[in-house]
């Protein structure tokens, strides 16, 4: 029997989807380790403790709540110290986090503080005797590596979307703890958080992504992509590197080897030829739709459904059809 600790990521006092995915992965790992407990730790400004109930509903037995007015932005040093301190005290088998911008930052800090081996961006976790085994897509998703981690405590960051949050009702006991290091003592100081476009889900969380490429011909035509995303209702908007390099869209929208790597339920590639670097960022999507005027474009090799045609003609027609289909049910 072994307990597992999860860092449950929040933004604006709401749990992020990666937090529930990590709790789900932790529940599975604790169950596979002979039925241990899942403990979650959530940190933020006063009010963040309300997240405990949702964590319990997904399988957490205990939720440690760190409420501090100084934790309204990502205070990496204080949070890493606090999670490491809890991990030391709790005698855990593993610490799990989402492989988000925050988790990527915190995971290696915890590994070093705890002198624990770490595997990043894992898609599957299992137990093999005294070792923990984790699968990780490396080489920009072109090679799947199975890693063995020895050591009594390991750190694992879980790929967003690899685990589907699963309800596993537990009435989590909550316990308030103090930050191990005062957030105001941090050396790295957050001066400002610049919010991006509002009202759309993040690329890492959206079940549907509409992405645009150079085939749209002009920055102004990106509104066709926005309109199609609006028609689906729950879609995020992404772009190729060519488009972000040209300044049609912000750098943070880039999907591909050097940008975001996504695996939504549905990926619609609009005017994207499918350069290998772009495919590296989206080829694990469940269903891929491609609309492109060049029938020989590489994107059609990975598209479940391809339409050869002018995006300026096909996309508005698709937007109208999607709206009609959604209105009828």
């Amino acid at each position, binding site marked *: 029997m072994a307990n597992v600790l999860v860092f449950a990521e929040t933004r604006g006092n709401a749990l992020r989807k990666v937090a529930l995915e990590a709790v789900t992965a932790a529940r599975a790992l604790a169950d596979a380790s002979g039925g241990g407990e899942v403990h979650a730790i959530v940190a933020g400004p006063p009010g963040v403790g309300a997240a405990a109930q949702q964590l319990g509903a997904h399988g957490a037995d205990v939720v440690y709540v760190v409420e501090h007015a100084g934790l309204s932005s990502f205070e*990496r040093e204080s949070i890493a110290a606090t999670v490491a301190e809890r991990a030391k005290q709790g005698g855990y088998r593993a610490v799990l986090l989402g492989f988000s911008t925050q988790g990527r930052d915190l995971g290696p800090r915890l590994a070093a503080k705890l002198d624990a081996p770490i595997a*990043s961006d894992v898609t599957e976790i299992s137990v093999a005797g005294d070792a923990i085994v984790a699968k990780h897509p490396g*080489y920009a998703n072109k090679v799947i590596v199975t890693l063995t981690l020895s050591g009594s405590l390991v750190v694992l960051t879980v790929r967003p979307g690899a685990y589907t949050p699963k309800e596993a009702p537990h009435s989590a006991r909550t316990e308030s703890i103090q930050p191990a290091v005062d957030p105001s003592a941090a050396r*790295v100081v957050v001066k400002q958080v610049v919010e991006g476009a509002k009202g759309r889900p993040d690329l890492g969380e959206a079940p549907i992504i509409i992405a645009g490429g150079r085939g749209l011909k002009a920055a102004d035509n990106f509104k066709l992509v926005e309109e199609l995303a609006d028609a689906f209702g729950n879609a995020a908007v992404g772009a190729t590197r060519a488009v972000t390099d040209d300044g049609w869209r912000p750098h943070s929208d880039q999907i591909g080897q050097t940008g975001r790597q996504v695996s939504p339920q549905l990926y619609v590639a609009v005017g994207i030829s499918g350069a*290998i670097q772009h495919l590296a960022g989206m080829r694990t999507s469940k269903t891929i739709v491609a609309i492109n005027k060049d029938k020989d474009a590489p994107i059609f090799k990975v598209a479940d459904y*391809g*339409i*050869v045609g002018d995006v300026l003609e096909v996309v508005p027609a698709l937007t109208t*059809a999607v709206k009609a*289909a959604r209105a009828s049910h």
Partner: protein
Amino acid sequence: MGAPTVKIAVCIKRTPDSESRFRIASSGIAIDEAGLKFDIDDFAGYAVEAALQINEKGGGGETVIVAVGPDSVQESLRKAMSMGADRAVQLKADSVPADGLAVAKALAAELKDGGYDLILFGKHAFDTSAGVVGTATAELLGLPCVTAVSQLDVANGRGSARRELEGAAELVEFPLPAVVTIDEGVARPRYPSLKGIMAAKKKPLESKPAQLGAVRVTVQKAELPPERPAGRIIGEGAAAVPELVRLLQNEAKVL
């Protein structure tokens, strides 16, 4: 005297060309390296360029390139020196282990008494795509660390940086010495000039054993991902839209 000079270490990794078609080696635990082209990893290349620009702007200073790896890594160290770095250190190991913390320990042992104001890394390397080594090195050295920055400025003993978050960006400040891991956007690496290539041949490249310690993360298996089923073109132009909607509703069930 002008602004104080900055001593910068850039830790790089040598990785295969990301556009390669990979095969698995007969060992079953690594890629087959035959025929692959290796170079400084993309993100580490941005870090080298960022360091050179900081020192060019400040005047003086020193840029030292550090890498863990077998002797083949010397080619990448020479390349960084041909771009303009002053000297290089190879921490010799038969291979770079999958245990990022072990690599960080070897680097921290080398860097701790080096008197560096700034230590740069790529945000992650293409091969392991893990992003552990830079941040873990910072922790081992007890230095402030900012990860995945897309803009970096250094002046008067302080740094400021921009980090892209999911759907937002964060502007941070920190004191030096510090560790920063570099995302793209910071600087496009320059190509070495002929003069740079000639000069690099005479620059010092020191080689010493890497103090990796115990390696606790090992590769048990490497495999290629399952192929996606071959693509299917369902039609041409707007006339194909009704069929697409039908498939999205009835087959893919996403609408």
